[in-house]
């Protein structure tokens, strides 16, 4: 939507604005996310297939997983999504202080999410719920594990982006990088919204 005037500076120079009317970096990220959708389709699809496509026995997720904690964690991830989008809004306004503050909050939110997930894993494993504990264990750890891996990657790149922000790399309207990484961040949030519902609640 926004970055038209700032198209330069990214790889490709004068070509940055192309036929779809979308910045090259943003388009690239979207194409990448499309493939991520297919990756999670394989994992989530397998879960759906194994749980509802066959006659396998399936425990009530509530009886195994702690829903209140995870609901809180979901809320934390949503908050980090909001802080991300606020960081982006600040970058568009060239409000550098706001950008740094919101980015730090985002990193914090993401890191908290991963920590809570690690805590949850630890707890579940102590209870004896393992990847080898039937299909539910297998699908649960695979899906949430790969989501957690994505969040971790997101946190790491967000730390890198924050460092760059402190160095003033996004000043003067060069905010395309913030929007691009933001897309990834929101996508991870979106996947979690789906996962939380179909793995924990249903």
């Amino acid at each position, binding site marked *: 939507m926004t970055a038209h005037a700032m198209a330069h500076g990214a790889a490709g120079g004068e*070509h940055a604005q*192309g*036929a779809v009317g979308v910045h090259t970096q943003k388009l690239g990220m979207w194409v990448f996310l499309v493939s991520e959708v297919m990756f999670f389709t394989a994992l989530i699809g397998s879960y759906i*297939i194994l749980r509802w496509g066959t006659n396998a026995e399936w425990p009530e997720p509530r009886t195994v997983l702690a829903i209140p904690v995870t609901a809180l964690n979901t809320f934390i991830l949503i908050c980090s999504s909001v802080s991300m989008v606020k960081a982006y809004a600040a970058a568009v306004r060239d409000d550098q202080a706001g950008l740094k503050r919101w980015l730090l909050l985002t990193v914090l939110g993401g890191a908290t999410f991963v920590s809570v997930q690690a805590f949850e894993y630890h707890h579940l494993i102590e209870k004896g719920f393992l990847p*080898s504990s*039937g299909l539910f264990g297998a699908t649960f750890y695979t899906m949430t594990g790969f989501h957690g891996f994505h969040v971790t990657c997101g946190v790491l790149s967000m730390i890198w982006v924050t460092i760059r922000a402190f160095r003033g790399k996004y000043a003067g309207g060069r905010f395309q990088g913030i929007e691009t990484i933001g897309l990834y961040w929101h996508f991870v949030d979106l996947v979690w919204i789906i996962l939380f519902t179909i793995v924990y609640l249903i």
Partner: protein
Amino acid sequence: MTAAGTALPGHTHVDDRSLIRKYVFSTDHKIIGIQFLFLSLFFLLVGGLLAMGIRWQLGFPGQAMPLGGWLPEGVAPGGVVSPKTYIGLVTMHGTFMIFFAVMPLLVGVFANYLIPLKIGAPDMAFPRLNMWSFWLMIPSGLLMLASLFVLGGMSVAGWTVYAPLSNSPDYTGVHLGQQLWCLSIVIFGASSLLGSVNYITTVINLRAPGMTWFRLPLSVWALFITAVLAILAVPVLAGAVIMLFFDQTIGTHFYLPAAGGQPLMWQHLFWFFGHPEVYILILPAMGIASDVIANGARKPIFGYTSMVWAMIGIAFLGFIVWGHHMFQSGMNPTLASAFMVSTIVIAVPSAIKVFNWLGTMWRGSIHFTTPMLNAIAFVSMFIIGGLSGIFMASTPVDMYIHGTYFIVAHIHYVLFGGSLFAIYAGIYFWFPKMFGKQLDERLGKVHFALTFVFYNLTFFPMHILGLGGEMRRIYDPTVYDYLRPMQPINVFITVSAFLLFASQLLMAWNIVRTLVRGKKAEINPWHDCGLEWTVPSPPPHGNFETTPTVYHGPYEFSVPGAAQDYIPVNQPLPAVPEGRR
């Protein structure tokens, strides 16, 4: 690594990058394409060597292989291929050829090299990601190579690694080999993903002024559509393989029925990737062949628009036909019928393409250059591969020929007769641009003729074997009474295959000799219209001094009223003719 750079002829332009940046960790799409070229030709050789092992055992079961005595006792006791080694060879031949030879040859080499040059861009949209796409192939390939030598042996589950055979060492004794296979494929998926993101973004956003969608060369269209297929299909494979890896390592049971898992789910996920993969392996070949045929016939491509729509149709339908690999798998027979219909429908766009190639040659002025010869071979062999596919599409007939040598013949008519001939056409065609030197035409034609003959002698008889009921992937067909009379065919195939392999060395020799002391190539040796032929050979870093402007479609050959029989796309058409593009 591949020492691609060292063989490059000297650059004259000013370029202040260090040698390592220029030739090893280069972000230049042309260098990356050339790196892919040498890497995948190496794997083509590996895959070919493995095939020779397979053929020896099938032609002369139980006899010591020439040089087989050099192999360790565990692999080939007394020089004879053991059953385990045999299935390993079958598995790794397929794996190397599909993932590490043909796919990178088509996508890694030609998409990288051609897309920016042909659309008038200075480089890919994300040059650094592009570099990573190549450098991820290295660990992926190394892991796959390493899996040949690890404890427990290489994967023996076929290139389709059907679960549960691949799930557990209980069934085959293979553990590390299969795990490395999985890791390698996941890394391969990441590499392919980075490449595809680049190709798609580049084609959408970096086209030069005037290079509209329907002025794109068909090769670029094909590579673009291929990238779309890859981006949608490869992640599914990655997901499926990761679950397989977990089954092997951390005790999950995705595909193990004992704990409620579903072996058929592997087949579904694999073929959901696998069938688009088939088109990933053939669409770029179609695109390359289209470019070369228009050039060789000195005529515009017949029905350019329908060629584009046929490819789009193939890509779309390619996602709803995966079940035809599983007709006999115990899948719901009603669903199989649905897959039969979609499979049969997908033959139509393929037919359209063949007719359009014929239409392109009709009333042309066909120059029998080496690239053109290979492209013609591509068309004629693809016809056979396409027609033999119809037998499998019909579910009752498939019941008999499924899993027999008929399938092996079919896949090789499509992947060797189709893809590889087009790859050869592409290499002969663009080699002068890549290296600034012209491959020896005479040697090229000899190579073509020998390949064409021995290729057909190798693979055509496999149809007969299949109809006689010979199963694929069996170590020793002479175990069966009804197969024994056909053993002479196997011997014949084996001899032909050896000669086919030997013929390929001619090409290797041609490449090496040309690189060392080849004839210097002109800027536009084939008198082609594409943008890549308007820049020096090899093109400088950044490709174009000024961004070119495109005035018309890619195949303006023999335009009436024009001074020469081709009009480069960056020159306007003469005023009169009725051709609009």
